[in-house]
């Protein structure tokens, strides 16, 4: 079981951040958040919720509205989303929770909560343009099937990544 030490017990009012909701909603992708009436169909269809009941899109949406900044951004389960899009596909209010979650993950990453594999993938695509390392054995295998060589040039990706600043994100310095 994952450590989620901030959860459980009553909401600590002194820790609420009244600006958190507007901070999230200033991202275009999260604008429909106010339309959520907490019916929970997102959570009912979420395969990750089935595995980790602690992970609940409905609950997270409510927590954002209440301003529970620290609890939301440090929640380890937000990184387990399988990106199946069921939450937004089934939402009767057209809330795109998948996009809201991405906004939350981006904010959490800036605050040092990003899991190492995602940070490492960024380092890798800067090198070769692809998220997986390659080696001579692969090149040989590809040639044996007459498949074209891979170019493996990360220079343009590097420029793009630098423009967004995510090359500076460090993995899980907190949480």
């Amino acid at each position: 079981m994952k450590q989620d030490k901030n959860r459980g017990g009553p909401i600590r009012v002194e820790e609420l951040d009244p600006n958190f909701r507007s901070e999230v909603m200033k991202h275009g992708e999260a604008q429909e958040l106010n339309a959520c009436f907490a019916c929970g169909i997102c959570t009912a269809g979420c395969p990750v919720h089935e595995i980790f009941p602690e992970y609940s899109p409905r609950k997270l949406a409510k927590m954002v509205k209440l301003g529970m900044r620290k609890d939301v951004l440090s929640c380890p389960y937000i990184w387990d989303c399988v990106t199946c899009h069921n939450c937004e596909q089934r939402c009767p209010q057209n809330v795109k929770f998948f996009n809201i979650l991405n906004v939350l993950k981006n904010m959490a990453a800036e605050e040092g909560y990003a899991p190492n594999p995602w940070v490492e993938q960024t380092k890798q695509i800067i090198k070769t343009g692809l998220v997986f390392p390659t080696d001579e054995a692969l090149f040989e295998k590809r040639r044996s099937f007459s498949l074209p060589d891979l170019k493996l040039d990360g220079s343009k990706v590097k420029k793009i990544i630098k423009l967004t600043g995510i090359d500076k994100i460090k993995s899980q310095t907190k949480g």
Partner: protein
Amino acid sequence: MKRYALFLGCTTPTQVIQYELSSRWVCKQLGIEMVDIEDFVCCGINQVNLSQEAGLLLAAMNLALAEKRGLDILTLCAACTGHLAESVERLKNQETRDRVNNKLRKMGLEYKGEAKVKHISRVLYEDVGIDRIKEKIKIDLSNLRAAPHYGCHYLKPESAFNGFDDPDNPKTLHKLISATGAFPLQYETLNLCCGGKSFPVSREVVFYLVQKKLDNLMNRNIDCMVVQCQTCYLMYSDQQEEINKQLKKRYNIPVLLYPQLLGLALGGDPKNELGLDLNTISLNRLLAKAGINRRI
């Protein structure tokens, strides 16, 4: 027949080259021309975890590279399909497109919104068509029963796919399987995600989801699963083996990529043209049942 820019993505050309091999071969047989663009890079979907803007910029860069050559993109990976198609939708917004193009221009690129994205199965379904596929079948696979798995991003977000298929009750892969003569199974966990996108951070999620689907399929008398994404492939085949090893289970369901199944029906060489020997779980029993007298 139409020409497409072939978008390989990251995983197929490095870990599942039989998908690339069989896709190239099948498209050649059916007159779909694939153009390699060596400047293509990662579609950006995983970068969305850290920055949605980075994910969008990478997608836009790839779209711009195809557009420069006057081509639409043909994808193999479901996730690349979903992310690129969703990005096409986002970039219809003038403000977003201007912001993105201001950055792309630094690399001498611009995306005007012309290049579009289609998954290989959609190209087979729409451009070639079920009837024309049937006309080309050389080997009848009607002895085979196959469980289709669509892949979430092949269908969703629905807004990115123009009503191509119904995410809640998808039919296109069933029809593509039927075209080969094989029987496509309808089953309870059809729409269950493979978990592949959380594989780098959570094996627990993958093990649970893969087992849930395999449990559903174990006593359904099927010869294989048929997938249309290399990540789904890796979850249901390589992780099936991993689950057997680590959890002492005895799952034994071979997994084919759709172009491999279609390739067999089109008379392709199982090994050299379709790369069946590269699949993790042996397909010899399936080949024998299909009456293809070649061991791999």
